[in-house]
């Protein structure tokens, strides 16, 4: 297969014993692209994350990270290209301070100290975590631990960033920090694949939606189109997020799904109405 994308699944199947998790899944994510991976609980989304990171390997088909076939490659080798945050990010933290934890990746890859320091500082900056750098990860709230795990993934400066529910349990400010950090990272050319149930976050931050349904690829299209279609979302276990639902209910022109766009459109239409 010719590999154009930073990440590609080609006919991938995977089972846990006799429980099939993924069947014949194919998609590509280009460098700089921001993709949401959606679907019900148990649809196979986290399995995709584990396959990208090399924690699991496909039973059939191939997972490509750039021009690397992940078959036969261990997670620590793939870490040169892949950064990830697991769903239960707590389980990813282990060092005595947050700074040590964030710097673990670049240190393990063997970068010299000044480079480790630069990457760690930039990652802490990106998530506004400097104030907590000297704290023990377990003295932080679950929300900050989540941001800490993401900082650790960013410090690898990966070409592929895969995140499993990065906003679960975060307040609006926390979600905003995650959104800014991952958008910036994608703008620098990384491919971004985000497993999320937070469709409001997806609408604000991501461009394209891939939906899994019982282990199969059910849909792959621009998010703004998908999120405004309640009839299509329903059989996939999804519900339009509030902004998309409002756009449809008020029949706003262009059906915006991002808050800023919807507020601008709302103001414009309301202004037009009051003049007429």
């Amino acid at each position, binding site marked *: 297969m010719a590999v154009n994308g930073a990440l590609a699944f080609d006919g991938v199947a995977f089972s*846990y*014993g006799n*429980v099939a998790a993924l069947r014949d899944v194919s998609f590509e994510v280009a460098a700089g692209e921001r993709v949401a991976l959606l*679907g*019900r*609980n*148990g649809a196979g*989304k*986290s399995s995709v994350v584990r396959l990208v990171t090399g924690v699991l390997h496909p039973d059939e088909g191939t997972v490509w990270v750039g021009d690397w076939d992940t078959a036969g490659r261990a997670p620590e080798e793939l870490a040169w290209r892949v950064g990830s945050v697991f*769903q*239960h990010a*707590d389980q990813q933290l282990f060092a005595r301070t947050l700074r040590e934890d964030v710097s673990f990746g670049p240190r393990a890859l063997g970068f010299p100290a000044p480079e480790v320091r630069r990457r760690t500082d930039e990652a802490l900056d990106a998530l506004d975590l400097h104030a907590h750098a000297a704290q023990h990860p377990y003295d932080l*709230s*679950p*929300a*900050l631990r989540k941001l800490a795990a993401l900082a650790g993934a960013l410090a690898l400066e990966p070409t592929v960033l895969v995140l*499993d*529910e990065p906003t*679960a*349990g*975060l*307040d*609006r*400010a*926390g979600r905003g920090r995650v959104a800014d950090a991952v958008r910036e990272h994608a703008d620098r050319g990384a491919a971004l694949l985000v497993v999320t*149930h937070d*469709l*409001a976050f997806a609408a604000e931050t991501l461009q394209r939606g891939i939906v899994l349904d019982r282990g199969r690829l059910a849909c792959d299209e621009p998010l703004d189109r998908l999120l405004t279609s309640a009839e299509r979302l329903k059989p996939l*276990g*999804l*519900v339009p*997020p*509030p*902004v998309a*639902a*409002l756009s449809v*209910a*008020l029949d706003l022109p262009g059906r915006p799904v991002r*808050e*800023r766009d*919807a*507020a*601008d459109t*709302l*103001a414009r239409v*309301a202004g037009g109405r009051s003049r007429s």
Partner: protein
Amino acid sequence: MRILALEEVTFWYPATATPALESVSLEVGSGEVVALVGRGGAGASTLLLIAAGLAPRVTGGRLAGSVTRGARAGIVLPTPWTQLSGMAFTVWDEVAFGPANLGWPEHEITRHVDRALERLEITPLASRDPVTLSGGELQRVIVAGILAMDPDLVLLDEPTAELDPEGARAVWRLVRSLAGEGKAVILATSDVDALPGVADRIIWLDQGSVRALGEPSLLAEDAMCEAGLGTTVAGLWRAAGLGAPYPLTVVDAAQRWR
């Protein structure tokens, strides 16, 4: 019937000078759903731990003021995967772990476990090994395990964080049905858009103190929108420069728009 009363409760975690919760008073009665809303670190999780009797007993630290609990409490933590017993090889046995430890007779355990699995719509998972479950499935198993112990006070910390939108809606319906049976529910959630149909009362916590409390319409007020804690629809209305009062939900907005 009064289920829980906090009077002027202040709480400090071990080795901290600033209290996580300060002078909080609150009464919750049976059949009531109270939602705690605030930024991360505002004290919602701490309040739930106190209501559950876990703080300071398990967390350590110091509590001033008084806590009166007239009933048995069950809590679902924001990290539900840490609540697995680790001693069950099937989901059914996992959900039965709590009831079995309460020393109930066999048939009572069976009745409550089966009912809890049904209510969380996870009966088909009954024979699965908990370690093979997805994050969202696991969260529902933990909620079922708490409900199977039939607590009168149900405490839920971010109960939908791991759930798909359909699963989240099912949990919010379940919360209403628990209240309908006379249970008291206190929950903390960052999904404020779900609250208008779920909560009877909203408590806005800010840096450990109660900043405001009232009906869900509070979530459309200027100050809450300003703090990023209003509903999405209210926030949008405000951002568009349309006048207050802001609509709370999509349905309210659509009525207003006509």
